[in-house]
């Protein structure tokens, strides 16, 4: 068996101390053993001499050195500000049943950036120093103010490589906004909840849904599928059949689906009060969705679909340094490399934090665009925004791959100090990682076919060698 000789024979017990902590987790397919560097092997259940096993390759100073390197690579280092989420207006031309952002009515006043706020935003943008930045326009419906979008785009300093994402409900596309969409550095993001009937139900109006579909097709014809992404928002208690959801995406030529459960905050919270304890249902659905993708990808091999968050999980397992996703990283610095600026200039660490605050649940603002966000509040959030030192995480086999989402904890429990295993975030991720590692060790060609594609491998996913 390849690699096995190395695994067992070269262990020097005296070197064990150099090895970062080894953790175990029991799965159906065996016992997963990982170290803090994220190196892992699968052992059969009931292996006797566990104490002496050092399963991570060449067991000497080189392996230890590599381990420290990998461990460091797996920690996100906070960089300069390079990701802005901007809310130029809170007004919206739709009223979706679960709108996450407590929108304002179309004709409402004082829900757009004031001239003063605009000035500060433009100062912020023109002061960006990172080599590459991403600026995302959220709402409300940002396309109601194409003038503000254009001003922000124009304020990016020369030499900074900027990518703009406009999150829109695609209700109206006029020439002004089309001129912005036409730019090569602009991407469009929208919502597609599944089959159009479902989309219409969740978004309260069939006429609007028809307009959405029409505009969506118009943009696809104009730009092809790479410019537009769509996010489905799924109600875990009434999820669409995976086949229907995938069909809906396939109809628009899209292959990446980022499943998100309805976020029970803001307006959503009021309508869906049973929200809190449906995590289990969500995990089940997520898994069944991925199983469905595996089948479908195998049946129809030319068209491979992925679930974006699961692909991220896989990348984080195998590729140290995949730390750019702000939803899943450790530590997860707040108000450091990204920031949300609301329509009134208030600064939030995440978009969820903005929603929680707007919903009146807890004020998670950390400053404002005029005076900055180097605040005590930010420092307090940052102190909690890590898995390091947490008693549960420090013994968890998945810590090297996992992340921290304190805003999720706060939104559900009003505190960041609930024992980790009792949080929805932890339960959801344990389930996801369990599922991922079962798949990784699967012998099935179907599974390996999809895994290979989801990880962008040139060939099928390699068989993972288990210690026996």
């Amino acid at each position, binding site marked *: 068996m*390849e690699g096995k000789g*190395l695994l067992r024979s070269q262990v020097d017990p005296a070197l064990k101390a150099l090895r970062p902590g080894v953790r175990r987790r029991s799965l159906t397919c065996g016992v997963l053993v990982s170290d803090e560097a994220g190196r892992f092997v699968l052992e059969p259940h009931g292996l006797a001499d566990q104490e002496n096993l050092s399963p991570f390759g060449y067991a000497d100073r*080189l392996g230890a*050195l*590599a381990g420290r390197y990998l461990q460091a690579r797996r920690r996100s280092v906070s960089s300069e500000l390079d990701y802005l989420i901007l809310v130029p207006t809170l007004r919206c031309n739709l009223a979706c049943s679960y709108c996450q952002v407590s929108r304002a009515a179309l004709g409402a006043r004082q829900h757009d950036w004031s001239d003063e706020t605009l000035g500060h935003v433009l100062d912020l943008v023109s002061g960006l120093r990172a080599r590459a930045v991403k600026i995302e326009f959220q709402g409300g419906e940002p396309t109601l103010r194409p003038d503000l979008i254009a001003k922000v785009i124009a304020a990016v300093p020369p030499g900074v490589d900027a990518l703009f994402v406009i999150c829109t409900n695609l209700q109206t596309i006029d020439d002004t906004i089309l001129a912005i969409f036409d730019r090569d550095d602009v991407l469009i993001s929208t919502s597609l909840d599944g089959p159009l009937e479902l989309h219409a139900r969740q978004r309260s109006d069939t006429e609007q849904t028809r307009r959405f579909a029409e505009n969506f097709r118009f943009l696809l014809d104009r730009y092809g599928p790479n410019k537009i992404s769509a996010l489905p928002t799924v109600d875990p208690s009434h999820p669409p059949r995976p086949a229907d959801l995938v069909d809906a995406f396939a109809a628009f030529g899209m292959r990446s689906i980022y499943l998100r459960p309805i976020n029970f905050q803001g307006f959503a919270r009021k309508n869906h009060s049973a929200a809190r304890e449906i995590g289990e249902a969500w995990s089940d659905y997520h898994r069944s969705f991925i199983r469905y993708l595996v089948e479908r990808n195998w049946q129809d091999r030319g068209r491979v679909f992925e679930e974006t968050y699961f692909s991220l999980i896989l990348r984080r397992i195998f590729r140290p340094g995949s730390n750019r996703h702000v939803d899943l990283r450790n530590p997860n610095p707040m108000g450091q490399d990204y920031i949300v600026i609301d329509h009134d200039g208030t600064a939030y660490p995440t978009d969820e934090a903005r929603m929680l605050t707007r919903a009146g649940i807890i004020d998670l603002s950390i400053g404002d665009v005029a005076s900055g966000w180097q605040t005590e509040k930010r420092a307090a959030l940052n102190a909690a925004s890590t898995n390091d030192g947490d008693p549960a995480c420090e013994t968890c086999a998945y810590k090297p791959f996992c992340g921290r989402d304190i805003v999720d904890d706060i939104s559900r429990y009003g505190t960041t100090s609930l024992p980790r295993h009792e949080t929805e975030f932890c339960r959801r991720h344990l389930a996801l990682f369990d599922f991922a590692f079962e798949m990784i060790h699967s012998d099935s060609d179907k599974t390996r076919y999809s895994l290979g594609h989801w990880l962008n491998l*040139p060939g099928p*996913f390699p068989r993972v060698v288990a210690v026996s």
Partner: protein
Amino acid sequence: MIALTLPAASDADRPFVTRLGDGEKPAPTHSRLEHFEEGRSIWCGDHGLLEIFHAGENVQGDVVLVEPAKGRIERLIRTGSRHNTLLVTEQCDQLCVMCSQPPKKSHDDRFGHFTKACMLADEGTLIGISGGEPTLHMEKLLQMIEAVLARRPDLSFHVLSNGQHFTPEHAMRLRDPRYRRVAWGIPLYSSDPVRHDTIVGKPGAFERLMESFVTLFRAGARIELRTVLLSQNVADLAPLARFLAANLPQIEQWSVMGLENAGFARRNFGDLRVALPERFAEVAPALDLAVLHGLPVRLFNIPLCHVPPAYRHLAVASISDWKKRFASACDECRAQADCSGFFEWHPQELVDRVAPI
């Protein structure tokens, strides 16, 4: 094939290094073109007169070593080429089964000339250092690199080494910021110590190499790991990929290289060679593993049409300009510009087995 040495005559009595002027302001280290005609050119500088006999080569801008007694010049650094290599010694302490430049016992110390040559290189040139085993002369090698980079921080070096001679004391020295501009190309043929040792013809080489890696990574050295594809190690590639992911993830690149039909390899080419494209399936899992773990893997010296489309983005047009050739059928291939082609001395019947893209 581009000629790297040319017949020449000079009235100097000792070898010297000069840059064949290309119109810039004359400097004592430069030679000025005095006369040019079909087949020869005459140059003049502080060292005296130099007459070079050449067919079609344009040598203007080249940095050359003139050896009057041998009646030749050696083009050490050719202007505009990405493939300049200084051969610092022909001695080596390994004896690899496929060595393309079998070692010799004697050593001709040319570090002084090479140092001068580097100083005269074009702005931003990448200079290769090879052998034999350059680190057999570690002290002089490091001195040369440090001296050159102190005066010419725009240059960079790529040193081919068997990694047998780094000791813990080198870690401090290699931490000098100048070494950010130095990459070390080091071969590792298998994660099975015995197999690696057998291929390199030196017992204990694997263990010694691992020790060197500890030193090199402590120093934050830039490592390009090289694995030549051989019948002997093709089955080891996938385990090697896993080994690298777990134990050498710091490497800057993993180069998986096609065998060069030169030196020792010439005698046993049939036994050593992994026939591509037929046997690519044996190589592919290692590449999948490398990509899986985010190891920056590249394929060298393998023509694009010998690589299945899904893996072509990993292939590099790597064969040096002066020793590369194509088959006649390649003329109609759209991928030629991105293709490594073949070594000049690759067997003709194999060269002809191309499939234009």
